[in-house]
């Protein structure tokens, strides 16, 4: 089993988010970065599948040198090797294109991703990679087992759960409870230092999107407690203040 796990390098969920240059650029100063939480689940499942079935795990990130500590963490958790495509991940299509190129040269059985990144939360890359490669992509995957050449998976759909059997290779966007996320053990952290991290130049690609500017969501207003008997006031507030209908 040859598994590719695509990981993002994203701001820690407790980071204070701000923008500079007329709100066109995310300000990274003081921000701590982590592996995308959904990617963590994908990686954890990959490690379990490798333990079960044998094989190897390649971690992949499209990003500049600053993402290497995050990639090392993936190596510490259990990836055997890693690739960093040396480019700013400009948009989802650019990233998907880079990933697709790596897959073409790599003969992977499984391409695991998070259901979505937690910086731009596009939830697009897996679908695009599937299309670019002409293979199935499924998201959000909550269970994944491999039997022979078949992936048995379940995913959340509106109002229920869908069980699928798909022939490999596939792309899967993962989320909990697909696996229990793993804490890298100390020995893993030390051995990550000597595992190969290959840096590749990006494949040329046109940029299909531009950012005009970012807007911060309005600050959450306080919570209003309304007496359970007072349905009239609730309806009034929902209508006139929250404007939900």
């Amino acid at each position, binding site marked *: 089993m040859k598994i590719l796990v695509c990981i993002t390098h994203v701001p*820690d969920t407790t980071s204070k988010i701000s923008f500079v240059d007329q709100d066109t650029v995310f300000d990274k100063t003081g921000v*701590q*970065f*982590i592996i995308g939480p959904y990617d963590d689940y994908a990686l954890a499942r990959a490690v379990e599948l490798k333990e079960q079935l044998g094989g190897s795990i390649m971690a992949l990130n499209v990003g500049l040198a600053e993402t290497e*500590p995050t990639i090392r963490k993936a190596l510490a958790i259990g990836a055997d090797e890693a690739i960093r495509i040396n480019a700013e991940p400009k948009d989802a299509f650019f990233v998907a294109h880079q990933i697709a190129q790596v897959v073409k040269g790599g003969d992977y059985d499984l391409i695991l991703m998070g259901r979505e990144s937690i910086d731009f939360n596009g939830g697009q890359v897996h679908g695009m990679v599937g299309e670019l490669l002409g293979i199935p992509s499924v998201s959000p995957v909550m269970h994944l087992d491999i039997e022979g050449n078949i992936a048995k998976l379940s995913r959340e759909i509106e109002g229920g759960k869908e069980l699928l059997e798909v022939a490999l290779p596939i792309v899967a966007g993962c989320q909990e409870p697909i696996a229990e996320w793993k804490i*890298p*053990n*100390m020995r893993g952290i030390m051995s990550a230092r000597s595992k190969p991290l290959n840096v590749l130049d990006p494949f040329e690609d046109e940029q299909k999107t531009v950012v005009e500017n970012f807007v911060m969501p309005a600050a959450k207003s306080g919570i209003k407690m309304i007496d359970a008997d007072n349905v009239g006031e609730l309806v009034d507030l929902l209508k006139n203040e929250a404007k939900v209908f």
Partner: protein
Amino acid sequence: MEKTLEKNIVKGGGFLFNHPHFSEIFIPEEFNDEQKMMAKATQDFIDKEVFPFVERIDALEEGLMPSIMTKAGELGLLGVCIPEQYGGLGMSFNTGMLIADIVASTGSFTTAFGAHTGIGTLPILYYGDETQKEKYLPKLSSGEWKACYCLTEPDSGSDANAAKTKAILSEDQQHYLITGQKMWISNAGFADLFIVFAKIEDDKNLTAFIVEKSFGGITMNDEERKMGIKGSSTRQVFFNDTKVPVENMLSNRQNGFKIAVNILNIGRIKLGCGVINACKQIANQSTQYANDRKQFGVSISSFGAIKQKLSQMAAKTFGIESASYRAGQNIDDQVDVLIAQGHPEHEAKLQGVEQFAIEAAIIKVHGSDVLNEIADQGVQVYGGMGFSEEAPMARAYRDARIAKIYEGTNEINRMLLVGMIVKKITKGEFNLKDELDFFNTGMIHKDTFDAAPLSKEYKAIKNLKKATLMVTSKALEIYGAKINEEQEVLINISEMVIETYVAESTLLRTLKLIDQSGATSAGLFINLTKLYLFDAVRKSKNAGYEALACMIDDEAHLDSLLKVMDRLTAYNHLNTSRLSRDIADEMILQNKFPYTLYS
């Protein structure tokens, strides 16, 4: 490694007599990615395996604590400083400090972890022979076996060498039979291995033994009912003719007291450093609570009185953190030098720690004091909820208290650290006269380097050192060799020594940060340094006043010295409310402790 060898090698206690450049000290920002990842993994571990179970841990649920210890072992947390050949990771002393720092926020587990990895494991690591190390260290490192340390007895606590437990050689000379009663033994309830201190015949000094539970003859009282760290197993342990093979004697006969003292030296610096994350957690929770809690229509975090507490929490934590890793690196550097000089590794490691016994005691006393102050302020920020078991502060407050008592009470450590300084002076290792020349030369200052924008602070710290040495030299002049009998004076001097070391550590750390990234981005750290220093100067001044007044009855003489003290502690022009608000506002904005080192 080579780089560290070139560094100016620092002597333990030397900070009082020299003015190191900031490039000579290590700051935690300099931990490498691997060490930071270990810190983060440790944090993830306690978030996942300890915090969700605190109630059950504190209820001493059967088997829970040892199972968490086993998991910590699987993750590699129990063998960080054990050499690889014995199943550990072979990391540096300072990496071990870092792990102890992170684990600190877990109360009962902190003690279980510290007793196992520190006083439980280290005697074998540092004093075991090859066979003992090969036999026991891999099991302790993996967590398969848990260890405890049996020194204290009902009638011998601080006076540890007065222990009455006996070890009698069997007729066939194959075993020692150990009989006696030990008290306050952490981890006793689930330990597989006991480090036991006992006396052979009428020896003056103790001898240490490695005792496996399976040797038999070991019984225990019920768990002690404690004020805090309720989930840490603490029991009396009785040895009744426990049959210990002679090859399980640790080091030589009568070397046990020295082992106990040296192991406590190491244990205590980790204990002092092992408060940092607890302090940060209290600061995090207090900030969040203060932001959420509304009174008079606003968040209580908008009140100056609350900001004062939050900023003090940050400054005090910054202080103990700066001091801990500075000393930890000094130890690592010393060990490297000794190894390069051809000393065997375990001997080098011991001597490295021994060299910095003064700093170790400083960090133990200060760390435990600071944790208690911060916990107290945390309770206060929470108001009535601080007094309730529903909120986290009550537990934090109770759990903090033990740190001032074990691994040598703070009083014993304070006396010890001043005693060691006095010894170094009387042995001529440091020259008091040179440093005190200012009596003759007026108060001329030679700056050893430009400390802008903290030049005033740099000068204040140099003066603190002079004030400390002035009081010490007066005490030596008046009491001579009998200085040890003047505990009140010693305690006051220790206060000055501690505050000076910690304040200087914050200053040097901040200067280094300024050097690395500029004064603007180090703004927070400049504020923390100033706020810390202001308090340190006032505390030192009080302590100095009191010490001098205890020593000198002649009022004119006393007044002249108090005047010198006034001049040496003239760091007054500081608007602390502005500082405190700046710091607290950053915390309020981030809703947590104001900086993050390991995410």
